[in-house]
């Protein structure tokens, strides 16, 4: 807070100083990003000493800009440690212990420690707070058993943000605690979970009598839900902000490209007109998604967050499915073929594939858009209740002890 007076020019000078000490084109990732952290240029809105300068988050763009002017090597936070940087770091900053802040934040930023999130369970999907993984205290340890699912990056992670039930005798939102789990602890088993595409983006994580030291809790015992909200808020922001940022870019750009490179004579003139109308419609909706997201950002900046942000997650999921369905229709009979065949790989980023193959992959992958990060049904509830103020449903799971709530096996 003391440094609110740092000017853009000053900030650029600090980047220059960093580059004099370590240049990403000359040293390795851990070294360079470690220095970047030490200079307070990792996440400038964090406090000094924790990789920041205590200034407005908008100023991070200045750092990025200055780096891009002088470096060929540019690191992408999302590629390095999406969950650690996007959700782990803010959660540690807000709810972590001093030990955690001092020992974990730097390694999150450098990418030395990859992080994952252990919230969802097979029996608790939309109803995350209904989770059943048990944590029981014995002496200086918690003993945890249960099963987590949809855990990206678990197979390469050092740390997991674990939400577990520490007290089944109180209503469900009140009986959870939030732990920092060393993923190399005995009793942690990670198995790949293959999806409709054949790939395993996610994992299942089985926890069997895993011991967690008592000081690895974030927030207090029973306050896990509150801490989880911090994590989830950062997830929603990430997802809601997606979509194309320029007219005709992103998925709609790919669709138009597919259309424009169709083979002559592939369609009858009538079919061309029908498909053209669909593409035109999808273009309009993609534009409106882009502009609505832009309005949301502008409103947030102006301190007037409106409904535009929550709208984007729902709209994008539904639009994306229809968009890739249209792509398949443009491919026509070629969409019967799935070259080069289904794989069992673990994708990090998409490799260079033919335009057609990529469209088919996206067609399948898009089905998850209306499920992951909140189903479209849950999003409609949120819009209806939190934005429009409509009343909730009568609930039988709110004021009763968790153990008395009926749940799936």
């Amino acid at each position, binding site marked *: 807070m003391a440094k609110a007076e740092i000017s853009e020019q000053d900030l650029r000078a600090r980047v220059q100083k960093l580059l004099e000490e370590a240049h990403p084109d000359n040293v390795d990732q851990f070294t360079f990003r470690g220095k970047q952290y030490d200079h307070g240029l990792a996440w400038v809105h964090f406090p000094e000493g924790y990789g920041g300068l205590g200034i407005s988050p908008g100023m991070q763009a200045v750092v990025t800009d200055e780096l891009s002017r002088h470096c060929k090597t540019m690191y992408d936070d999302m590629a390095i440690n999406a969950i650690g940087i996007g959700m782990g770091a803010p959660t540690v900053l807000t709810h972590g212990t001093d030990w955690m802040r001092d020992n974990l934040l730097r390694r999150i930023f450098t990418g030395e420690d990859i992080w994952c999130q252990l919230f969802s369970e097979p029996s608790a999907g939309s109803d995350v707070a209904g989770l059943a993984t048990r944590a029981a205290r014995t002496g200086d340890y918690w003993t945890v058993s249960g099963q987590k699912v949809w855990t990206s990056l678990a197979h390469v992670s050092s740390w997991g943000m674990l939400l577990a039930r520490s007290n089944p005798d109180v209503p469900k939102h009140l009986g959870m605690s939030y732990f920092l789990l060393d993923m190399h602890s005995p009793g942690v088993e990670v198995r790949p979970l293959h999806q409709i595409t054949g790939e395993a983006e996610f994992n299942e994580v089985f926890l069997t009598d895993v011991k967690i030291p008592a000081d690895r809790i974030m927030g207090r015992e029973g306050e896990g839900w509150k801490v989880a909200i911090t994590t989830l808020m950062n997830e929603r922001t990430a997802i809601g902000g997606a979509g194309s940022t320029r007219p005709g870019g992103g998925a709609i750009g790919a669709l138009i490209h597919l259309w*424009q490179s169709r083979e002559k004579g592939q369609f009858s003139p009538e079919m061309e007109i029908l498909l*053209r*109308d669909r593409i*035109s419609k999808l273009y309009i909706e993609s534009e*409106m*998604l882009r*502009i609505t997201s832009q309005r949301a950002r502008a409103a947030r900046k102006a301190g007037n967050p409106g409904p535009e942000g929550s709208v984007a997650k*729902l709209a994008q999921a539904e639009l994306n499915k229809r968009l890739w369905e249209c792509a398949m229709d443009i491919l026509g009979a070629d969409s019967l073929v799935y070259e080069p065949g289904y794989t069992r790989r673990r994708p990090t980023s998409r490799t260079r594939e033919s335009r057609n193959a990529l469209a088919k992959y996206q067609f399948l992958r898009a089905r998850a858009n209306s499920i992951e990060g909140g189903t479209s049904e849950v999003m409609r509830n949120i*819009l209806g209740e939190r934005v429009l103020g409509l009343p909730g449903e*009568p609930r039988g799971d709110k004021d009763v002890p968790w153990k008395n709530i009926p749940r799936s096996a």
Partner: protein
Amino acid sequence: MEIAFTHEHEELRQTVRRFLEREATEAMVRHLMESQKGYEPRTWERLASELSILGLAIPEQFGGAGFGAVELAIVLEEMGRVLFCGPYFASAVLAVSSLMHLGDDSAKARILPHLASGKTICTLALVEHNGRWDVGSIAMKATQDGNAWRLDGAKDYVIDGQVADIILVAAKAANGLGLFEVERTANGSRCEPLPTLDLTRKLSKLTLSGTPARIISGSGDAARGLEYVLAFAAAMLAAEQVGGAQRCLEMSTEYAKTRLQFGRPIGSFQAIKHKCADMLVETEFARSAAYNAAFAASAGDGKEFIEAAHAAKAYCSEAFFHAAAENIQIHGGMGFTWEHPAHLYFKRARSSSILFGDPLEHRQKLASQLGL
């Protein structure tokens, strides 16, 4: 291009909203929709004297406020909310933009100040019997007779023609399309009201036989200018549609909160709640579409604006219609009665989706622009 309303914009919106809440009540709308003229002259006069919005998009040199598309869109959105009855769209949007884009200096100086003061009401007559909002379809014939002109033919669906003092008529002369000024009461002019589906917007059929007219678009071909006016009208109508959609969403939400069935508010049922959520998404998208077109219009009249106008009219038409239809459904039997305002929005939505081209047409034109 960024969509960003200023503090002054918000003030304009609030001023107009407060005014309309008093002056354009449902009772007034119902009174005017049954009337011949379709507007209340005292309210009209106050739009000029109190709010100074009749000349909102007229330059100051011609007695206006010197604003543009963004400000007009704000006013229209507010008017759309309450189904404002009166020749605002005809006079302050259609006629002003036609004059500004096509009119010669003399016409501007002669007519615009009276539009700004509200003393003269003006409209544009473009579409003909085939109902295609398309300058290529114009058949009205203009014949030069010395310095004077005479028009022969018929125009259909003339918005608020029944109360216009001056009608701007697009017609075909020997050397191309021109825009002509005709007095409604001129010799050989017949302006008959049409029985409209949407009672809150009056339409007329205009028949001209050897009617004296004055050319105001100079000697060149007015086709491109008229095309711009059509796109501008579509963009502005989209803003009006956003207001209607927003009001339908509000009515539905309000009703869903208070109407009890099976011992609970119907809005607590997902069937209703999710309908409202979808209406919200579509209304926000419609808002983006209309604002985008308005800001594009104030930035220029090039390709970016034309695309934005097509997208806005296509999207907002469907969003408003859907919201109006769902509003009836959510209100159940009551939403289907004459007494409840839901049907007024439904009819307005249906008619607005046709005026200045329906969604299919605009999507096609957009596709052509995009080279699809």
